[in-house]
């Protein structure tokens, strides 16, 4: 084979690669759009009246996840199934964002941490690499860390809205999450960087709890049920 023929063949392969990337990018853009819509919807809980409508908002968010599932389904068809990590960086960001949103919904509904399997199910993907398009563990953990900062914000705003018991529950949750993350030996990568931010979220929530306890507001919360009616 002559040199020019070899390079022509390589160019063909690279060109195909580019086409695949282009296709993936289109689907990822659509996914980002859906993710933004869900985020806007859930942002409502930070406003005063939003606290009363949490179940309704979660319900709506879950409906949007149906769109996510169909979009994921089309993403899966855009590239060979065994080359997940070749194109990983294209959907990494949006997948982390979606994990966060799913985790937020699940937290608001049940105040528990969504499992990796459950997120995978909500997003319509697999938890295991062996079974196809899957949720990478680092992406899952990144999404969970985003949830932590969102909950720190929620703790502050729930006090403003007069719900004094929620910060205590958030505090317990975040503390457990923190000790969970401390089990991990993280490398010096982006996940580690985001984990380093977790302590500020923990600190912030602890401050809120402190403010409530020196004013005796936490007792009122446990006795009277706080602002929830």
């Amino acid at each position, binding site marked *: *084979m*002559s*040199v*020019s023929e*070899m*390079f*022509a063949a*390589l*160019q063909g*392969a*690279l*060109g195909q690669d*580019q086409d695949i990337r282009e296709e993936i990018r289109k689907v990822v853009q659509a996914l980002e759009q859906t993710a933004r819509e869900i985020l806007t919807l859930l942002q409502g809980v930070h406003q005063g009246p939003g606290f009363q409508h949490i179940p309704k908002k979660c319900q709506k968010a879950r409906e949007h996840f149906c769109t996510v599932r169909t979009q994921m389904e089309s993403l899966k068809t855009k590239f060979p199934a*065994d*080359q*997940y*990590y*070749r194109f*990983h960086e294209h959907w990494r960001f949006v997948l982390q964002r979606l994990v966060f949103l799913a985790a937020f919904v699940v937290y608001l509904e049940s105040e528990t*941490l969504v*499992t*990796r399997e459950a997120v995978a199910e909500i997003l319509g993907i697999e938890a295991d*690499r062996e079974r196809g398009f899957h949720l990478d*563990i*680092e992406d899952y*953990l990144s999404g969970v860390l985003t949830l932590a900062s969102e909950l720190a914000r929620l703790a502050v705003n729930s006090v403003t809205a007069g719900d004094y018991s929620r910060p205590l529950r958030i505090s317990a949750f975040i*503390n*457990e*999450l923190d*000790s*969970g*993350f*401390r*089990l*991990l*030996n*993280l*490398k010096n990568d982006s996940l580690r960087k985001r984990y380093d931010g977790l302590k500020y979220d923990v600190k912030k929530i602890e401050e809120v709890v402190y403010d409530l306890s020196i004013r005796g507001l936490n007792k009122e919360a446990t006795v009277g049920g706080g602002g929830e009616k």
Partner: protein
Amino acid sequence: GSGGFRKRKHDNFPHGQRREEKENVNPPSALMTSFKSFQLELDTRHDKYERLVKLSRDITIESKRTIFLLHRFTSAPNGEEILSESEVKLDAVRRKIKQVAQELVGEDMYQFHRAISPGLQEYVEAVSFQYFIKTRSLISVEEVNKQLIFTAEDREETTNMTSNSHDKEPHTWSLKVTPVDYLLGVADLTGELMRLCISSVGNGDIDTPFELSQFLRQIYDGFTFIGNTGPYEVSKKLYTLKQSLAKVENACYTLKVRGSEIPKHMLADVFSTKTELIDQEEGLP
């Protein structure tokens, strides 16, 4: 006394986190159990990555040595000997690549691609350099990959007694060099060819530079054909490639114009000053 102190220190330092974890959640909650499995998964992944990085570094070093060895080819009278020695070295490199392939069984190769990519590029450079010296042509990516299919038989030298004949068949491993790794390796090859060109003039070899300039031109044309279809690294190499080609073309030019005027034994001097001049232009030492 001191024993107690030592014990306490030991307790505090590496197990600090474990102590706290016991305080906080006495019965391991669902969350903690799942994080423990995450720990295992992440550690396994990181360990594998580190092992691959180490293998890749070994591959790089051995390939570089092979290239140095091959540079001695033109100047030495015992050319065949050097070629066979380089073959032995490349076999050693391939054994390392086999280990890489074994690490990657059942994995997505691209997940660990960043760990092994530098080594593979260097290997492509070495193997294509040897191929060029032998055949004066460019090795194809298919040819490179053909040499990276390993069977268990290679291993028999060491584990002859223990290996069973029945599990020989399923044990084949292969590694595919990606087009991009191949291209980057070939781009590095051109730098080696440029050095080969200059040094061959030093040995009074007038034909090789012309042959090389033609070959480099073909590769350069190939790279320009690919242009920006490839990733960023490929287009970055294109610039260095252009410089290498310019050096070789200038060498040929000088040979043509002045070669007939200068006595053969002085050619080396002419080129040593010439290359210095080019190096200075680029601001290199």
